[in-house]
């Protein structure tokens, strides 16, 4: 048995190393000089430098700061809107009497199954007729539309787990509806709410399709800006491109390491639905 588990650990170390190598390779490339990058393969930078990062952010008067700002703003606002909308709706579907709630839940379930990629054309048309193409508001509304359905279901099942007896007891103690919501439901539904927020942040920060189609030239995100560099600019050095990769993955990786449990829950149930 002991011998067996030693083998397992060895295999894990091999596999784990393979899995980290692409990330390591990008990072190490981003800290090398052009001369070294194009002069052969070295496992460690001979002359460690941040020059590629500086070059990335100095491009076109700091346009990448602009892209980064757009991505951060979009992510923060989307997360807040998604959380608010889905906590309210999830609570209502779980605990309140609502006209046509079966119909609405059916609609939400249907929305989950239609990916945004299949509605790019009419959405472009809708946004353009509302004057929202290439605006922060337009993009947030699209993110919210396609993220809330799953989040509403997630919140509904979180609230479903709060027993009604708790509410009755609080009502008997003289608590009003607002107090009940704030002191009884919200704390118990918090894990669900965090899962929803993590799911939303992940999807917004990592999005490419929505930003590409509806952001136009005025609301480019970091991902869109990075792909522009890769596909349009052939003079750009791989040092700069890899530094772009590293900048893009660091925020979400830190976020993941902090909220790992919620990430796994949100992503898994988000895919299985």
């Amino acid at each position: 048995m002991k011998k067996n588990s030693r083998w397992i650990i060895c295999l894990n170390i091999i596999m784990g190393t393979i899995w980290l190598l692409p990330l390591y390779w990008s990072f190490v490339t981003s800290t090398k000089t052009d001369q070294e990058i194009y002069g052969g393969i070295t496992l460690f930078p001979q002359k460690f430098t941040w020059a590629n990062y500086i070059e990335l952010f100095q491009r076109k008067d700091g346009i990448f700061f602009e892209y980064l700002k757009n991505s951060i703003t979009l992510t923060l606002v989307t997360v807040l809107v998604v959380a608010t909308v889905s906590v309210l709706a999830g609570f209502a579907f779980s605990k309140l009497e609502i006209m046509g709630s079966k119909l609405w839940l059916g609609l939400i379930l249907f929305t989950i199954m239609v990916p945004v990629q299949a509605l790019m054309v009419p959405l472009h048309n809708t946004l353009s007729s509302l004057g929202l193409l290439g605006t922060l508001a337009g993009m947030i509304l699209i993110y919210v539309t396609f993220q809330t359905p799953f989040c509403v279901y997630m919140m509904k099942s979180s609230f479903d787990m709060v027993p009604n007896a708790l509410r009755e007891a609080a009502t008997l103690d003289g608590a009003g509806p607002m107090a009940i919501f704030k002191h009884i439901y919200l704390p118990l539904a918090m894990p669900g709410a965090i899962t929803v927020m993590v799911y939303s942040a992940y999807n917004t920060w990592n999005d490419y399709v929505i930003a590409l189609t509806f952001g136009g030239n005025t609301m480019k995100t970091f991902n869109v800006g990075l792909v522009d560099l890769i596909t349009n600019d052939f003079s750009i050095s791989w040092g700069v491109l890899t530094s772009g990769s590293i900048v893009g993955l660091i925020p979400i990786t830190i976020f993941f390491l902090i909220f790992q449990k919620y990430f796994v829950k949100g992503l898994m149930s988000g895919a299985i639905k």
Partner: protein
Amino acid sequence: MKKVLSSKQTIKRLSNVLFIAPLLVINITFFVIPFLKAIYMSLFDWKILGDKAFIGLTNYIQAFQNQKFINSLIFTGKYALLVTPMLFIVAFIMALLVNHTFKGVGIFRTIYFLPVIISMTTCANIWLWIYNELYGVLNYILMNIGLISKPIAWMKDASISLPAVCVMITWKMSGFTMLMLLAAFQAIDEQTYEAAKIDGANAVQKFFRITLPIIRPTIGLSMVISLIGSVLAFEQFRIMTKGGPSSSTQTTVFYIYETSFKNFKFGYGAAMSIILLVILAVLSYFQFKVMKDPSE
């Protein structure tokens, strides 16, 4: 008295609707209406400027006669059918590797899951550098161990770039399937194994007679999820192969995007989107079937 009560009830019900009002307004404006509009637009010759002419099903007929669209469907199908088993096999091995209790097993689970949380654009970029023809580390390694004598142009030929992109996706997504399988492994009752052990079953027998049959629904589910994801493939090819050479690696979503937003044939793009939706509906039906009936 009764009347007062019922009108009070109505007010309460109306105020309840306020809780779901934001959701409904957004959903109807940006989902229901666009969804119906997709069907409507697909029946028109809808360009960016000029009159929209009703042309019935012409867009659909044209789509099925358009070799480029057909090719994009075939290519997407090939990609989905290649990447799904590749990813599954690697994920299965991973799940077996981390389905143990030893110190630090959590670190390995995190490492395998890490690429899942990194954006597709970043992952594609990372691997594009590895696959670089002149300076890429992969050609360097393969040449040094003598597997190849001259550098391979990984992204310049569809028969090479398709598996190369699949390797990237396997690296990115196996952690996801691994966690699904791991959860299924751990849901199996330990006593079942104990009983089998008493009956004299060896490890191989236990695996094929107990583990596999119990986790079969999870296997099915993970495969369907991977198929649906692959049918929507876009960024990885836009970034890594740019759809080339001569559109040979253009996926369906990629082609719809170009038709709609590069050539501005909105009606035509909408018709092809509806065809894509039908394909997805069929796959979702299978997903439901796999999830609903574990004995299937």
